[in-house]
Every structure is written in C-alpha cells, then in structure tokens.
C-alpha cells in the first residue's frame, strides 16, 4: 500500500486498496458503536476542530460524535456566530484556530476548493466535509460502505443516482469513488441538472431517462432537490420533475429484486423521493446515518493515528 495521504479532500490521492482499508476498518468501528462502552482511546490527547462555514447539523454531529468515540477533544466552530460574519478571511480564521493547537480540521464551506486552502494555511490534516459543488468524500464513503454492507460487494454493482446532479457534491464524489471500487454508476436527471463533463469519468454513464437508468439497478440514490432549483429556471415545473424523476415504488419496480434505496439527507419527502420509498423495505437511509459515524471514525483513524 502506498504512503498514507495526509488529507481527505477528494479521492485523487487515494488507491482502491487504501479506500478498501478505510471501509474494512469501518466494520470494526461499527462494532464499537454496538458495545456498552462506545468509545476507544485511539485519538486520546488530540483536538479535532469542526470548522463549518456552511450550516449542516447532521454532518457536523456525525463528525463530532465520531471524533469523541475515538476519545479526541472537539472544538466546534460555526462561522455564523464568529468574526467570519464580520468579514474575517478564511485564512485568518484558520490560522487563529491552528494557534489553539488544533491537530486536525474538518471543514465544510460553500466555496469549491476551500478545504484545500485550509490544508495550505493550517498545515494540519484536513477532512473535507463538503466544499461547494466539488466534493463530499465521507458521504461517498458511507454510501459505498452501505452498499457493500447491504449487497455484499461493490464489484459489478449498478448504482443509479437520480436528481440534481449539477449542484451535488455527493453525486460528484460518488461518481469518482464508486467506479474505483468496481461499481458502475449511472447519473440521471433533467438535462438542465446533468453536467456533461462528468461523462468522461471512467465507469460513469449519463442519461435523462430515469426509467432506463433504474432498470436493473442494485442501488438507487435520490438526490435532494433544493428549493432554489425548483424555482430557478432549471425545471419546467415541479410536477413534471416529480412525474419523471421521483424515486418511488413504480420506478423502483424496474430495479433488481434486492435493490436498495439511498438518500444523503435531508429529504424533501414526496419531491425527489416518495414517503413510501423512503420508509419502505428497500430503504437504507437510516443505515446510512449509522454507517456515517463508523466511516468517519475510520477516516479519522487513518488520517490521525501516529500523524498529528
């Protein structure tokens, strides 16, 4: 296995073997979460800063719990209640936090590439918890882990991702990661929300036809349709989107018999996914949340042990 990457900004520096090790170790982390004492001392003495320049209660909670389960101390920084709201630059904010002897950063930012800047200015290991439209690697890892856990393997599995691909860092990270682990990815959505540049990725297909996209799929992931896209000129009408692209039982009837349903959350129920599909027997949406904590523990372990 090659030398460990210092950061998790995207998957560019990662080999399939390294990614496989992160997924394998997540199995052990999941077992820790099932114990009476849900905590191990692996990161004792380290301080992890969650620097969230964009709101996300779920992702931040998942990371903070993961860090605490590994016995790290957590410094929680939210831009909304800080000097960032008074115009302080990202660089100054990160350098200030670094001066508090933080050992690693978990960064969410609305600007693509912000996590790279944090890595540059902090000199500490950085985990990208979502930057602009670019990447959300731990979400993709937890999706891959959930599929592997539920279907036994990723090799040769057909994963269909439906919705607002254009604005989705989750879709981009999955389109990079899943083929590295042997899966085939189909990205599907209205032409206005389907960026053609993703078609060049190996193992990735694009289509505007949801019925074709779901036929024979082993996993179907619905992407959140944000309010501003509904009224921003990307869609003819919301009703048309729901009719063509909603992940519901009728569409899922075309998938393979044991296909599972995923959603990165939070959901717009009965918009991109029907309540019946979200709550039905194929749904693994809550398992994704549970697996997210295990994956983030594994990523923290990979990046920080013996390193910080």
């Amino acid at each position, binding site marked *: *296995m090659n030398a460990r990457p210092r950061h998790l900004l995207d998957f560019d520096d990662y080999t399939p073997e390294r990614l496989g090790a992160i997924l*394998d170790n997540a199995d*052990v982390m999941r077992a820790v979460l099932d114990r009476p004492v849900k905590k191990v001392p*692996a990161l004792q003495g380290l301080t992890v800063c969650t620097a969230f320049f964009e709101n996300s209660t779920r992702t931040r909670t998942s990371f903070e719990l993961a860090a605490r389960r590994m016995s790290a101390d957590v410094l929680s920084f939210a831009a909304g209640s800080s000097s960032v709201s008074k115009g302080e630059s990202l660089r100054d904010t990160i350098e200030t936090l670094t001066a508090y002897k933080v050992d690693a950063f978990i960064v969410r930012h609305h600007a693509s590439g912000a996590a790279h800047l944090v890595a540059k200015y902090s000199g500490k290991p950085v985990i990208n918890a979502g930057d602009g439209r670019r990447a959300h690697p731990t979400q993709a890892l937890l999706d891959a882990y959930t599929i592997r856990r539920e279907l036994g393997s990723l090799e040769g599995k057909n994963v269909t991702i439906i919705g607002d691909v254009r604005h989705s860092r989750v879709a981009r990270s999955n389109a990079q990661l899943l083929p590295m682990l042997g899966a085939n990815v189909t990205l599907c959505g209205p032409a206005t929300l389907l960026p053609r540049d993703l078609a060049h990725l190996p193992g990735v297909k694009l289509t505007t036809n949801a019925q074709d996209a779901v036929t024979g799929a082993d996993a179907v992931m619905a992407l959140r349709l944000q309010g501003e896209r509904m009224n921003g000129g990307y869609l003819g009408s919301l009703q048309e989107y729901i009719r063509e692209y909603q992940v519901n039982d009728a569409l899922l009837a075309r998938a393979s018999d044991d296909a599972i349903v995923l959603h990165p959350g939070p959901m717009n129920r009965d918009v991109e996914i029907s309540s019946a599909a979200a709550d039905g027997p194929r749904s693994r949406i809550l398992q994704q949340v549970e697996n997210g904590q295990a994956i983030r523990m594994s990523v923290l372990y990979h990046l920080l*042990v013996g390193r910080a």
Partner: protein
Amino acid sequence: MNPKATILNADEMRRALTRIAHEILERNRGAQDLALVGIHTRGIPLAARLAAKLHELEGVDVPQGRLDITLYRDDLSEIARQPIIRETQVPFDLNQRRVILVDDVLYTGRTIRAALDALIDLGRPAGIQLAVLVDRGHRELPIRADYVGKNLPTSQGEVVKVKLHETDGSDSVELWNLEDVQ
C-alpha cells in the same frame, strides 16, 4: 538465515500447553465460569488449543473470544502505516466470568495493558488471568503472567518468533538475532 536456537519444538509446545491447561483447572478448581480470550493474532489459535485441552480434561466447553487491541495501543505514534484493525468478538457475557487472556509472547507488557482496557470496556469480568506461551522478560509495566509455557531470558537484541500450525504451517518457538530478521 537460521535461528540462533529452537526453544520449543511441536511436542514441547504441546506439553507446555497441556501443563497450562492443568494449572488453569487447578487454580480455578475446574472450568466452570471460565472463558478464554485470545489476543490477535497468535493468541487466538492458542486459546482454541487450550479450550480443546480443557474439554479433553474436564468435558466442559469453555467459551472463546478474540480481542484486537489496535485501538487501545499507547504506541500509535510509532506506527507509520496503520494496520488493518481486526474484529473483536466476545460472544458471551463477561460479567461474573473469570477470563483467561491468552497471548503468544509476553514482552514489555504494553499489549496486555491495552488488552485489559479493551476487555474492561466490554464488561466487568469477575477476574482476569493471563496465559502466555513464552515470557521473554523486559517488562515496562507491572504486569505478570499467571501461566507461562516457557520462561526465556532474552536480550533486547533478540527476537522470539512463535510459529503455529494454524497461522504459519508448523509449531515452534525460535530465538533470532534482531539484525537477522530486519
């Protein structure tokens, strides 16, 4: 390259484990409420062998578990590349049981300290005892074994290699010079 010495051959290893099994039964007045927990990697087959001997001697099936201590180590800063963490599996209630931790070599005591922490996070055993195939000395912590297959005074420039049929294809304990195995 050959070892400096073969400390135990297959027969001697078998006899040492048989003696440990007898000592366990004598000290605990039988095998009731006992459990064997092997430490990854070679502690696991050694625990299985002790369980088989206890069954042979007493007709009791002693429950077995496996413990990975990677997340509990205190020398993680020395790890350049993290190992894959193996599964910890203790499929029985630890409470009220006397647990016998099993490992191949007792050296600094740091592995056993980590194992004690890992075990106590899983429950509250009535007691914990330690069985090792080889005690090579050089303790850095106040830890001692209750059952020892072979006491082997060594220098820190030497390496003790335990080979087991289950993991290495044959049974032996060998002493090597450190420079010969690096």
